[in-house]
């Protein structure tokens, strides 16, 4: 899966979990600062990414990922 596809699906998941318009999500948006994710939603996002991409992520490392672009790279590393 190429990164463009990963990014598209990441944005889709984020829009659903945070209940925001997908079109408003910038490529480098910060989950907390730009998209208003709270701590509970951060955990929900990890679960949703795992389900979407059928992967199991290191939760501590996943929680350190703060932006859309970083999460695309992080998820892609599991897909390689």
């Amino acid at each position, binding site marked *: 899966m190429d990164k463009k596809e990963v990014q598209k699906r990441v944005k889709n998941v984020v829009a659903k979990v945070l209940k925001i318009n997908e079109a408003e999500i910038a490529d480098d948006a910060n989950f*907390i600062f730009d998209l208003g994710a709270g701590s509970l939603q951060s955990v929900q996002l990890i679960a949703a990414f795992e389900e979407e991409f059928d992967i199991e992520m290191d939760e501590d490392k996943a929680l350190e990922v703060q932006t859309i672009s970083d999460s695309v790279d992080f998820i892609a590393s599991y897909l390689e």
Partner: protein
Amino acid sequence: MTTRFKIHQKNLKKFIYPDSVAIIGANNVKGTVPHDILLNILNTGFNGKIFPVSPGEKFIAEVKAYKYVVDIADPIDLAIIVFPSSVCHLALEQCGQKGIKAVIIISAGFKEVGEAGIEREKKLKEIAEKYDMSIIGPNCLGIINTDPGLNLNASFARKMPEEGNIGFLSQSGALCTAVLDYARAKHIGFSKFISFGNKVDINEIDLLYYLGDDEKTKVILIYLEEIRDGRALMKTASDIISKRGKPILILKAGRTTAGASAAASHTGSLAGSDEICDAAFEQAGIIRCDNIEEMFNNAIAFSYQPLPENKRIAIITNAGGPGVLTTDAAIDEGLELAGFSEDTTKILKKNLPATANIKNPIDVIGDARDDRYNIAMSNTFKDDNVDGVFVILTPQSMTDIDLIAHEVVKVSGKYNNKPVYTSFMGEADVSVGIDILQRNKIPHYSLPENMCKSFACVYNFKKRSNHKALETKVFTGIDKIMAHTVLNEAIKTGRSYLPEEESVRIIESYGLPVLENGVANSKEQAVYIADKIGYPVVMKVISDDIVHKFDVKGVVLNIKSAKEVQEAYTSIRENVERLQPGARIKGIFVTKMIPAGEEVILGIKRDPSFGPVIMFGLGGIFVEIFKDVCFRVAPVGKQVASSMIQQLKTYQILSGKRGNPPRDIEAILDCIMRLSQMAVECPQIQELDINPLIVLDENKGCFVADAKIML
């Protein structure tokens, strides 16, 4: 003054009296810090504009929310960041772009969590400096300003405190909420209440300076855990106390830190950071308190009542026992029982029952009602021999507790040039009276002992404020170049310790009295030196490996002949080889034997917060056992040096009591001041001991008998 200090002073007005506040990272989740801070600002009637900033919300608590602070069209005076620590720098950057100069960062997750947090703080500091912003926090409770013209509770404390004239600064946020709760129960009000947390930018000195000028603040309280710049704190506090007359009370945590136990010198082992802190506060006029209760006991005395002119107190009680207890406590605190004038005595005799005690303490008897308290209070207040009145009450079945409390309020209001303190003893029954007293700003103490302690505290502050500024003397004729040459050379060669003969040279260069001496490397040389300086002499081992020479029997005293010199030379070398094998002996120090005198110790220690500190005390080999020593931050003038000598428990040994002649105190004062100058001018010296300094009788001088310097 540094540039940042000036910037902070300019920006502090916007922290304390903002026209508009943005809460960045606010949310709609009740019971969370980002939500409760916004509610606190909204609910306490803040007289300014409020802008929640939240990327996920359109409205919070029915107030329009903005995605970014830069989206707000209005100017913003104060921003409060409540985002998680990982994104605070993003919010701060936008604050800078928006032109906001005052930012409180409430969020935790910085220095207190380790390396990652330290890096985050660095980033905040860089951004603040880039935009000339000032930051309070992070990891703090926030700010409260009770000024009725503003009403700002920009904190996550549960309730707004009452208005008052006490300014409170705290490094701990959690302690603040406990203090607010404690104070609310006692109707203690605040002018400003500021939690400054990790002090990444603004620190206690910036805030202290601001409160020093704040018209609404009469008393300043500070809770501190860490002092980074002790000298600046001393200077700021001293200026505020002397120029503004505002008392500063500090509760400094960390009394039990045992940082000095492994030190190589006597001074190092005796001068723990807490002892130095005590001394520095005392010098600056800061009142150090041991706990919150003591701090507020003193604070209400300063806050509610005039300062007493003198220390003569009148005690009015309806119970004999508490009257005696109060008398004992008052005397213990150095107060005096007032002797009443003839007029007062006559009126009391005429108007109180025959069974009443009309002498001080006045016992109005157990069945006393408000009228007797009125008579006793009114007439003692009017008496010129009285400087303050203590009112004590115990709850008998006929005691009108509430009426008596009202009477205290009424009478003290009429004679408001003298302080009145109260102790309604008990708990449940007296609570109604205590509440009346506290609501009416009459200092109340559950124990009379605490009442006496607080009066003494206030009186001592007043007494001290009458003193002129203390001056220090700068001695001329000092061979500073020689001292620096020896010290720098030693440092250059990697040495951490100067043995006696080199230490003595440096001490001598600052004009302290040392005895004629020489270094011998053979018996013959020792005899030659002893013959030259005259008998009796003292001989001591010189070795970089030996710190305490007596412990290895490396000292022989009172040597009276050439033969004894030769014997001493051999025995010292043999003792050292036996008791500390491997110690490198550099020679034997031969010096004049000093006539018998009193042994005192002088020392220097360099403290990370307060810089060079001077120690003085009872000397000799038992100095660490008796611990009769005291400290002052250098430079030390004659008055302060004199206070050091008088502070010793064994002062009377020096001043000549019980048939002993007085010792040469003037000579000690001269030594303390010269050593103080050395401490300031020679930063290479980390620790120094002169132990003992032998002090002879009055006008006969004193002599350095042993010394060592740690680099």
